[in-house]
């Protein structure tokens, strides 16, 4: 999978991952693991596990599957670390592996059955308990909207809007052109908005 992604990058004239001249704070740990210090891998995990779990959960939408994906990601990273080129930033490389693992697990799981309900937004006189319940419902609906996106758009949206990577970084991680990332995230944003507008019916002409 990684080799295929690199091939795409080469085809598109993009260098494999970033050439940022800034020193990677994780490089020391990577160097130690490559030198045979297995314990240093725990340090790498400490620095990056939040990101990996977050990416996996946002792409897969399932807590247990995301934990499995994170575990598999780190095992793959450990196996591939001897081939990692020092000087490249580690985190984008790690996230790229995490996204590939999520794709693999997502394919194995197959499409999820998404129950769709209409949601009435609370009016002016709604109680706090009612508002809390409706907030939960709204979260569920937005997650369903994200889960309904094609995998490419979902990954691009998660990495660009939720994880905060730049368009160019996302392009390198996903092995696609920046213009494709822009098009995918724009499409995904519009679909999420349309999904929310369709399912969140505001009472008495309120804002959807």
């Amino acid at each position, binding site marked *: 999978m990684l080799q295929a992604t690199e091939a795409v990058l080469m085809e598109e004239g993009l260098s494999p991952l970033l050439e940022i001249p800034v020193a990677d704070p994780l490089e020391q740990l990577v160097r130690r693991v490559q030198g045979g210090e297995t314990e240093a891998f725990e340090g790498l995990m400490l620095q990056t596990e939040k990101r990996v779990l977050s990416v996996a959960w946002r792409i897969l939408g399932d807590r247990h599957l995301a934990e499995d994906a994170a575990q598999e990601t780190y095992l793959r990273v450990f196996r591939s670390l001897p081939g990692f080129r020092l000087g490249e930033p580690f985190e984008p490389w790690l996230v790229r592996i995490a996204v590939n693992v999520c794709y693999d697990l997502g394919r194995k799981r197959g499409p999820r059955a998404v129950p769709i309900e209409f949601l009435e937004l609370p009016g002016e006189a709604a109680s706090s308990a009612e508002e809390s319940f409706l907030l939960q419902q709204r*979260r569920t609906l937005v997650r369903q909207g994200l889960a309904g996106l094609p995998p490419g758009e979902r990954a691009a949206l998660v990495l660009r809007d939720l994880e905060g990577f730049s368009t160019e970084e996302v392009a390198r991680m996903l092995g696609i052109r920046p213009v494709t990332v822009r098009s995918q995230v724009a499409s995904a944003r519009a679909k999420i*908005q349309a999904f929310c507008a369709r399912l969140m019916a505001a009472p008495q002409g309120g*804002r959807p």
Partner: protein
Amino acid sequence: MMTPHVLDQLPLWIEGDLAAPETAALEAHLSQCPECRRAAERLRDSQAWLREALEPPFEAPDRQRLRARVMEQICTGATAKPGPRMPLRRSLLLASAATLLLASLIWNLERARPSRPVHPGLPAPLSSAMPPSRPEPTPQVSRPRPAARPSRARSPESPPLAEPARIEFQTSDPAVRIIWLAQAKPPSEPIQTPLEAP
């Protein structure tokens, strides 16, 4: 005069993905167009809802558990035979072996079924257009077919070590039996596949 609506550009503008001149033009339009302004507002809301709903649920104990599981697998050397790939390969291998075994069993069964012993009291063939023309096995035959069950005596000219494979098929018509003699032959000789009546 108002510029055309910018609804299709709003999803890019909302997260700052437009170039500076496009952004300036779009914002100039928004200042004049209530419809596009409302659409931009809805998009801003849905982006905020997205961020709020996709806040990861993991806490420190979850991360600690993950770390412990990974380090345990790494330290016990389990990564040498990683999780999902090896079972897949193993299962593919097993499935291939099972398929081959099944195929060979079916093939053997299919071969064995028609060559069951033929009863001696079968009627004579209905047509006389097919005279018995059993070929004489040539002495060059050196590798008889293992599945062949010779049910008839060989011709006296047959050498003892060059026995041809003989397969008999009893068709649904009791009067018709197909006998196939298979043997290695010199390149000049034609293949002989005679039909023989009982």
